[in-house]
Each structure stands twice: as structure tokens, then as C-alpha cells.
């Protein structure tokens, strides 16, 4: 399950990534493997045709993977970089649902951004880590933290 970090209690040894496009293009893109296929198809309706190339949903043209949406890049950043915390504020609804479906990963946002499909998540605040299991509970915690 993913962990939502309060901006007030980010551990000193963990970095927050806000510019998900830049981070993806520089670091995550070279880590992608078969696990990325499903997510790229699910969020952007694109197909990964080789390590750095995708087939566009619009006209089938083959594009560099830097043309993925910021929401899709954010999800892939979270999947492939478990040591960092990623700001999810640029995720559209479809990418947000994907974020909350991940088995693990770290996220933050200056305001509550919760998928209606949320199941269990961990939250990390000044009191430590605890589990939450509903949209309302998580949203209320988030509003009080920021």
C-alpha cells in the first residue's frame, strides 16, 4: 500500500520530487521494464514498443517516452523510486486512481487529493505511521495536516 506523507513531517533523508516530468525524463525512463507496460496502457492508452519508445493513442505514431502524460510519469516515478516522495498534484483522475492502486510508493500533495477508489493507505505525520481505509478519513487527516 502507498504511504501519504504530511509535508510537515517528511524525513530528513527523503527527498520530495515536485517536477515529475523532469525526474522521469532524467532518471525513471531508463529503469522501466515490463511492469511499466500495463500502467502506460491503463493511463495514457499508449503502448510501450521498446525501452524508450511508445505508440501514440492518437495516431499510432511511435514517440519518445518523454511524451507520456505528466500523470503517467508520476505513477511510474512512484513505482520505480521507492526511496523518494512524489508530489501528485498534476495527476488527472485516471492517474490518481492508478496511484492509489499501487502496492507501494510514497506520495505527498499540499492539499488533499484522494481517489474515490482508495482502499488502505499508510499516512505519515508527526505522530508516526498509521493506516487509513476510507476516502473521508484520509481527506480529513490531509486537510488537518496542510
Amino acid at each position, binding site marked *: 500500500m502507498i504511504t501519504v506523507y504530511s509535508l510537515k513531517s517528511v524525513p530528513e533523508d527523503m527527498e520530495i520530487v*515536485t*517536477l515529475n*516530468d*523532469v525526474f522521469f525524463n532524467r532518471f525513471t525512463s531508463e529503469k522501466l521494464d515490463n511492469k511499466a507496460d500495463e500502467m502506460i496502457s491503463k*493511463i*495514457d*492508452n*499508449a503502448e510501450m514498443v521498446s525501452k524508450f519508445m511508445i505508440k501514440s*493513442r*492518437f*495516431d499510432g505514431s511511435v514517440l519518445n517516452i518523454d*511524451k*507520456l*502524460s*505528466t*500523470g*503517467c510519469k508520476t505513477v511510474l516515478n512512484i513505482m520505480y523510486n521507492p526511496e523518494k516522495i512524489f*508530489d501528485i*498534484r*498534476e*495527476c*488527472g*483522475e*485516471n*492517474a490518481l486512481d492508478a496511484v492509489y492502486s499501487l502496492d507501494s510508493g510514497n506520495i505527498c500533495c499540499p*492539499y488533499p487529493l484522494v481517489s474515490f477508489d482508495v482502499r488502505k493507505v499508510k499516512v505519515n505525520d508527526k505522530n508516526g505511521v498509521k493506516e487509513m481505509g476510507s476516502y473521508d478519513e484520509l481527506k480529513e487527516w490531509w486537510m488537518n495536516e496542510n
Partner: protein
Amino acid sequence: MKIKPIISDSLSTKHTSFEVDFHFDYNITFICGDSGTGKSAVFSFLKELSAVDKRIVCLNYTDYNRNYKNSIRRYKGKIIIIDNADILLDDKIRSYIAFDGNNQYLIIGRNPTGLMLSADETYELSSEHYDGVIRFTLKKYI
């Protein structure tokens, strides 16, 4: 705030097999919607258009460490197109944009808070295919 467009009520361009054909109802047009629907692609086409249309100024995450907020305050008579708005626009600059009577805005993001827009002032992209061309237009976001 429902102010009519002060610079232009439309913007159109072509990029190989892609067409952008936007008609604006208000001075601030906020585009949101799912990831992967072509918002940043459209931004890149409009940025290209800015090379030949002096009215257009484009800002995105590559301007993050630049002095873009002061630039916005200095512009007059521009159509300011902003991608990655959730990252670039803080509360102060949103408030400035909401009351700016000198420029028109096309803003791509997720969160319209602070721009003083009502629900029917937000849009999403619509794309249609015809004769090998993909045409992007605006439709109301529901």
C-alpha cells in the same frame, strides 16, 4: 468571473497531422481532465504557434526556476498559456490572474482554486479524427 475574452475569442493552429481549434467563452480558460488526453501536446503546438504570433506567451515546468511570476505581471495584451499550472501558480499569482484586465489566459492544470472560476468555466479536451487529421477542441468539463 465571467469576463469575455479581451484579446481573442479563438485560437487555431496546425502541427503536421494535428489541429487545434479553440473557441473561448471567457477571459480565463481552464483546461483539466484525465491524464494522457493530449493537454501537453496541445501546449507544445501552441508554443510553436507563439513563434509566429506575438500575442502568445507560453509557460510550463521548464520555467519553474525562472522569474515567470514577475513576467506575468509585466505582460500587456498577451494570451498567456500556462501548462503545469498546479506547480507554477501559487495563491498570489492566481489572485493576480483572476483580476488581470490586460491579458487573456489559457491555463492547463487540475486545480482551479483561486482563479475565481465557476464550474461551467472549466473545460477538457475533445479530440476527433478525420481524414488522417486529429483535431483538438474544447468542451465543458463535467
